[in-house]
């Protein structure tokens, strides 16, 4: 099959089928995606680094398996992209920051190596907000990313490059990271499927830490099924991350296809109040109605501490960030600005290496953790976090899953909110709650606004119910826009 006759959109199962039928080789498919990147990336800016050598080596390995008639691993030949906060041995990992502009890690993150051993072909590293801090990808030191679904608009953030790569057909799936919404919010903005697994489900080993008690790795894909396959390939206990759990990893792809049987959909009132764009509200309500048609029952409920989530989040996340980012001191990693004294070298390196938002958060976090303020801020935020987790626990007594909008508004224009950090922070108002509670959440597209901007529907489930969350999202996706078979 020549490049001209290759289909434009691929799924994990269509790739598998084509490879087995030998209508395309893994090498040809990989070359096709690099052609697309070469053509479209200058405009979209989703990729910061490509690694063709590594990709073709992986593709050739898959082709060799096919040639020998051996069984194929689950992600064989699937072109994927990695958010640039995940360590890749020998491949530059910038975290979207000038301070790590030339940093080449000596090892792979567990998520990266697991996808590769499942046969995935890693194309390269995707743009993101610096150290995953942001909701628009405008905080990258390497320029903003265009939303492929809506030119001139942000792709969301911080996993904006990963979302844009998938939405722009530059990769079949991508890994993002989510600390307060950074997988789900860009997923919603770009009109794709985006899953944040339970805290502890996927090893964080090799993920550059932003806020260690919140950071999670998850897939962005064109369908719930594909997201399920990627999750299955990387979930599970890793001795290198003490917070990764040994809970068994089910066959997410098979389980997400189970029909819905009288599930109770919790609809928390606090997610439909002031600040919610009417068009978003309407699309989400339509989606709920469709799920009801599929046999689910609607349960309206309250989650009284929701309003405090953003405040608590920005104290906990910045506190942890201020500690985690202390390591970028010009001594051990990346950039070093020469100076006459050690102190001056620190100041210059961090002053020139970090962007505005990172500095703002390091200062906020340092303040919140300082002697005399700790009890009033950090400790209190932890208590609020416990209350929010309790809200969820109580809600899950009455409902099996919770349905909310992913974001209060669709994507905004590039540059629109950069001067107002507080307004920017509110983009995560519906996602941070699940982050604080440690539960899984998924965003699936549920239509578009009149301005043709994608809108996301969010499904939350209790800890380690990825299968359930995927099942609801898949049933909705099939009913709303059945994929061509």
């Amino acid at each position, binding site marked *: 099959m020549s490049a001209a006759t290759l289909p434009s959109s691929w799924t994990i199962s269509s790739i598998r089928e084509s490879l087995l039928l030998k209508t395309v080789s893994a090498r040809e498919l990989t070359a096709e995606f690099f052609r697309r990147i070469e053509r479209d990336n200058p405009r979209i800016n989703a990729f910061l680094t490509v690694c063709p050598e590594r990709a073709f080596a992986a593709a050739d390995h898959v082709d060799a398996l096919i040639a020998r008639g051996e069984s194929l691993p689950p992600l064989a030949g699937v072109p994927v992209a990695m958010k640039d906060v995940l360590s890749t041995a020998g491949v530059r990992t910038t975290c979207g920051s000038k301070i790590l502009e030339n940093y080449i890690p000596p090892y792979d993150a567990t998520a990266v190596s697991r996808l590769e051993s499942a046969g995935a072909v890693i194309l390269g590293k995707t743009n993101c907000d610096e150290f995953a801090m942001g909701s628009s990808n405008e905080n990258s030191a390497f320029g903003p990313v265009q939303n492929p679904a809506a030119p001139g608009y942000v792709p969301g953030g911080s996993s904006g490059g990963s979302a844009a790569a998938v939405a722009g057909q530059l990769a079949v799936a991508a890994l993002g990271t989510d600390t307060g919404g950074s997988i789900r919010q860009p997923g919603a903005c770009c009109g794709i499927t985006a899953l944040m697994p339970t805290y502890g489900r996927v090893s964080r080993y090799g993920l550059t830490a932003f*806020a*260690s*008690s919140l950071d999670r790795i998850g897939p962005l894909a064109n369908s719930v099924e594909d997201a399920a396959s990627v999750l299955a390939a990387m979930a599970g206990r890793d001795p290198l*991350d*003490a*917070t990764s759990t040994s809970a068994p990893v089910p066959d997410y792809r098979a389980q997400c296809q189970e029909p819905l049987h009288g599930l109770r959909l919790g609809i928390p009132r606090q997610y439909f109040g002031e600040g919610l764009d009417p068009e978003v509200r309407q699309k989400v309500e339509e989606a709920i109605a469709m799920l009801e048609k599929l046999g689910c029952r609607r349960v309206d409920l309250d989650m009284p501490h929701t309003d405090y989530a953003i405040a608590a989040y920005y104290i906990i996340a910045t*506190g*942890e960030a*201020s*500690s985690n980012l202390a390591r970028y001191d010009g*001594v*051990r990693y990346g950039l070093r600005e020469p100076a006459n004294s050690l102190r001056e070298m620190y100041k210059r390196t961090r002053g020139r290496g970090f962007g505005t938002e990172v500095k703002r958060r390091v200062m906020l976090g*340092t303040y919140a*953790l*300082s*002697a005399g303020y*700790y009890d009033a801020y*950090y400790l209190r935020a932890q208590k609020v976090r416990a209350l929010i987790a309790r809200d969820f626990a109580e809600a899950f007594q009455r409902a099996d899953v919770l349905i909310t909008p992913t974001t209060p508004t669709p994507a905004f224009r590039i540059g629109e909110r950069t001067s107002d950090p507080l307004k920017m922070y509110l983009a995560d108002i519906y996602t941070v709650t699940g982050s604080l509670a440690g539960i899984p959440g998924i965003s699936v597209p549920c239509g578009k606004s009149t301005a043709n901007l994608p809108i996301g529907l969010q499904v939350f489930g209790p800890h380690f119910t990825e299968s359930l969350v995927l099942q609801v999202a898949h049933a909705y996706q099939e009913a709303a826009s059945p994929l061509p078979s």
Partner: protein
Amino acid sequence: MYELPLATAGFLQIEVGGAAQPARKRIGITRLHMEEDAAKALHEGFVDSAKFTYVDFNRCGMPLIEIVSEPDMRAPSEAHAYLIALKQVLEYTEVSDCNMEEGSLRCDANVSVRIRGTEKFGTRTEVKNLNSFRHLQRALEYEIERQIGVLESGGHTEQETRLYNVSAGRTETMRSKELAHDYRYFPEPDLLPVTCDEQRLEEVREQLPELPDTKRARFVTAYGITSYDADVLSATRERADFFEEVVRHGAAPKLAANWIQTQYLRLESAGNAPGNETTHKSPAAREIAELLLMIDSGEITAAVGKKIFPRMWQTGQGARSVILEEGIVKMDDASTMEQTARAILARDPNNVAKYRAGNESVLKFFIGQFMRETQGQANPQTATEILRRLLAE
């Protein structure tokens, strides 16, 4: 985590009062918590160490445990004894190799002085850079004198962190309380709470080796050796195990204790001396036991044993094969011995007469002569019998 230590309210027993007035003292342990090693500060050893402190990041991120003791120690010697006792437990349980030079055991000491009879502790200083047991004791001695000097000259001690300057033999201000750092501690999310159920605790307890205190006491009662010998032999688990293995192979415990402490440890410490590159194949417990049995049964003398031991140490050979190789003749042939004895007595009629006149102590003199003549290769008991018989003739 600092707020939730792994363990609290423990203690260690130390020996105090020296040989004159031996006594045991209980040193309380406040807490044991886990930290991440930041790095190791190297305050000396570089040409520009007077100006700079070097930082060794090789241990960065390694887990470490901090063991905080109660203010129960009253003298540098007690601090020294406490640290030795602690080190022994850590080595016995294989928690750490306790190599102070490499930083796997480190120690900071808080010191304060007070007027005799007062209840309240004085203002304390924290002394760092104590890289060996010797430095610890010297630094504490210096710091105590320094604080006394400050108080006696009408001043008052500042709460501060001081650095022990090894070459100058004194402590120096490192940072004062005014400059105390706000570390902005918070719970480390990557370290999960550890849940230890009773079953797990039981498993660990079962795996615990016999600890130094118990071992010492058992050595005294089971083997009838002195508590001093028990101390030396149980200093490390390896040495204690070796001693017991020698005994298990049939050696008399007292002889084994004695031999290991003198001959064995002498060669061992000579072998470990800096710059000593000679290789050896130190004999196994079985070989040593065999040697001791030969001495005990009179097959060879202790002197012969001592003579052949270095060769056993060098080659790892057993006693019998060394004796054969060295051509040492065992003097157990009665007629040869009698010939020698007669020759000795014939040389010295005066002393023979003295003995026969009733001066029994002359016998010892003759035994000495005999042993010298035979280069210690004769069995002294047989020699005594022969001499006594010939003198009585």
